[in-house]
């Protein structure tokens, strides 16, 4: 009797696949069948669409409706297909032109009264639609601002199903409704945490700036109350603003996690600090059916802070090894593979022993040596090996507190400016390479023709290597940090001083 087709987007991870939504009306007893691997929420679209259409003044035909979501073998999730299904059904019934419906990508969940609810994942879906060559998307009015952040695509925000069918040319009179808006979830900023609040710990402040300049992972070891958490939470404030591509990526992940975006892209690096009871699925992503991003993916282009790192499950920590290496999380399921970006900067903090007092000057540690050894052994060698900067943090003494009043503290804004300059210097040096940050550069290139440092410069490092104090891999890591130190100071090449500082940042923990 009638056939119409339109398009929607099925998200798998951050990437979207085009889904053709076909509706066929056949002269049979009333039924509404959705086929093409829907999950429960999507199969229930039948009830939502029927009620929404009836309450919008354009009831769906009392005949048999078959809705096919093609490609049929791709699993589809969630209520985002409601609008596409409703529009296809009404076009099949001849309410509006089937041609107009075919050219538009629809995305949005329907309420029973016919209004459109804000739907999570709009931004990645619209990015996917634009990437697949579509020019027009129709989204809920509450998400229109978010969808409009994608360049080069026409966004039609509609408040209700009635508005949607009128836009497609149905002969109905408009009836204004209250727009359903997404919950206001203001983007929290780590920027109001200023580096100037940190008292003492000048070495750690310097180390943080080096880490920010080179994108190095950081491990901090120290007794409770030494200020590890305080330092780590100030690292995002030192990082420069995100560039366009990174900003779109962070915003898309935020949209996918169902948190509001507001009317602008996120331009500041995110900070994720999962609790140490987090599971591997919470860390890297997972879930049954729809695969959701985990903390590591949400921290992409920003900072992943693991406080009390040895308390995390060892499987959870080791799940981070692959993203640390490749900058990508790949989650495999029997019927789908989801990819999430995971170019985060890892910051871990730990106490030196279960009681936390080992190495503190004021209180004696009560742990037996075996417990101490076991505690830090929970951080596996391969994981620690990927961390460039490992430093000890000490408690602030009364003397430091008094001195702190005399010298001007380093403000985050000033430090960030230095970091931006340092990163620009590194990018200039690395402009003919695929890398942009010192932490990404492989060892052979560092020891290669252009960037080899003289024996006088690296003598302290060579001695450490000869004595067996560091491994060859550790040697490369110290070189990388040395370049970051030099960039931060504005010197064109690291000298013996910078190499010495880098060696201290790598091995300072042991002292």
């Amino acid at each position, binding site marked *: 009797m009638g056939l119409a087709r339109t398009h929607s987007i099925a998200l798998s991870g951050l990437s979207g696949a085009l889904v053709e939504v076909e509706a066929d009306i056949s*002269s*049979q*007893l*009333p039924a509404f069948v959705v086929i093409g691997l829907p999950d429960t929420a999507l199969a229930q679209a039948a009830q939502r669409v029927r009620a929404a259409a009836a309450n919008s003044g354009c009831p769906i035909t*009392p*005949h048999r409706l078959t809705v096919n979501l093609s490609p049929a073998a791709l699993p589809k999730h969630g209520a985002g297909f409601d609008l596409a299904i409703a529009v296809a059904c009404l076009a099949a019934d001849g309410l509006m032109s089937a041609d107009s419906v075919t050219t538009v990508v629809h995305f949005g969940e329907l309420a029973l009264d016919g209004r459109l609810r804000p739907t999570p994942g709009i931004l990645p879906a619209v990015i996917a639609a634009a990437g697949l060559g579509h020019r027009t998307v129709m989204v809920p009015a509450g998400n229109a601002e978010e969808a409009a952040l994608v360049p080069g695509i026409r966004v039609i925000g509609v408040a209700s199903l009635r508005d949607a069918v009128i836009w497609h040319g149905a002969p109905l009179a408009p009836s204004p409704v209250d727009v359903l808006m997404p919950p206001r979830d203001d983007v929290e900023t780590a920027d109001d945490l200023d580096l100037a609040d940190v008292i003492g710990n000048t070495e750690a402040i310097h180390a943080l700036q080096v880490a920010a300049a080179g994108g190095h992972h950081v491990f901090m070891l120290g007794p409770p109350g030494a200020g590890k958490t305080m330092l780590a939470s100030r690292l995002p404030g030192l990082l420069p603003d995100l560039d366009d591509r990174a900003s779109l990526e962070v915003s898309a992940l935020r949209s996918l996690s169902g948190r509001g975006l507001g009317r602008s892209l996120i331009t500041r690096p995110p900070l994720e600090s999962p609790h140490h009871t987090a599971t591997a699925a919470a860390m890297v992503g997972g879930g049954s059916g729809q695969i959701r991003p985990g903390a590591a993916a949400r921290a992409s282009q920003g900072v992943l802070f693991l406080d009390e790192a040895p308390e995390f499950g060892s499987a959870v920590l080791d799940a981070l090894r692959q993203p640390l290496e490749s900058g990508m999380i790949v989650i495999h399921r029997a019927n789908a593979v989801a990819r999430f970006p995971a170019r985060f900067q890892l910051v871990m903090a730990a106490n030196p022993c279960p009681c936390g007092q080992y190495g503190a000057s004021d209180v004696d540690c009560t742990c037996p040596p075996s417990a101490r050894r076991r505690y830090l052994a929970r951080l596996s060698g391969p994981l620690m090996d990927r961390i460039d900067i490992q430093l000890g943090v000490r408690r602030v003494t009364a003397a430091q507190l008094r001195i702190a009043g005399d010298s001007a503290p380093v403000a985050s804004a000033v430090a960030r400016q230095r970091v931006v300059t340092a990163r620009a210097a590194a990018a200039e040096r690395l402009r003919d390479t695929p890398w942009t940050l010192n932490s990404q550069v492989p060892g052979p290139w560092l020891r290669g023709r252009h960037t080899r440092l003289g024996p006088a410069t690296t003598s302290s490092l060579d001695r450490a290597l000869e004595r067996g104090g560091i491994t060859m891999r550790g040697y490369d890591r110290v070189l990388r940090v040395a370049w970051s130190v030099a960039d931060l100071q504005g010197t064109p090449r690291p000298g013996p001083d910078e190499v010495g500082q880098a060696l201290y940042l790598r091995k300072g923990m042991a002292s």
Partner: protein
Amino acid sequence: MARKDDLGRRGEDCAAAYLQRAGYRIIARNWRCPEGEIDVIVDDGGCVAFVEVKTRSSTRFGHPFEAVTAVKLARMRRLAAAWCAQSDVWPPRIRLDVIAVITGPANPRGGTPAEPVIEHLTGVL
């Protein structure tokens, strides 16, 4: 007679008249057996159609077709078999049809009601 039975009767009359106009030969109306009743049985050029007629005065409580449930269809299938068993000649082909009649509101002052709307689905099972 209750009003709903009256409405149903009127709907069946409309449906039978419609079927005759459409060229079907009516074999039986309201054929009964212990299992239940078939509203209309017609012959469509060798194919015997068992027709269920559903009548509503309006679609306020749903379209008549929506009242034809899987249970109802299963019963019609059993009834069709029962009719075939007692028939002299086993029909070469059979099918199940449903007819919806929407009569529009009855006129309280008597007089002729509005022309009913008839929809016919063939081969629903």
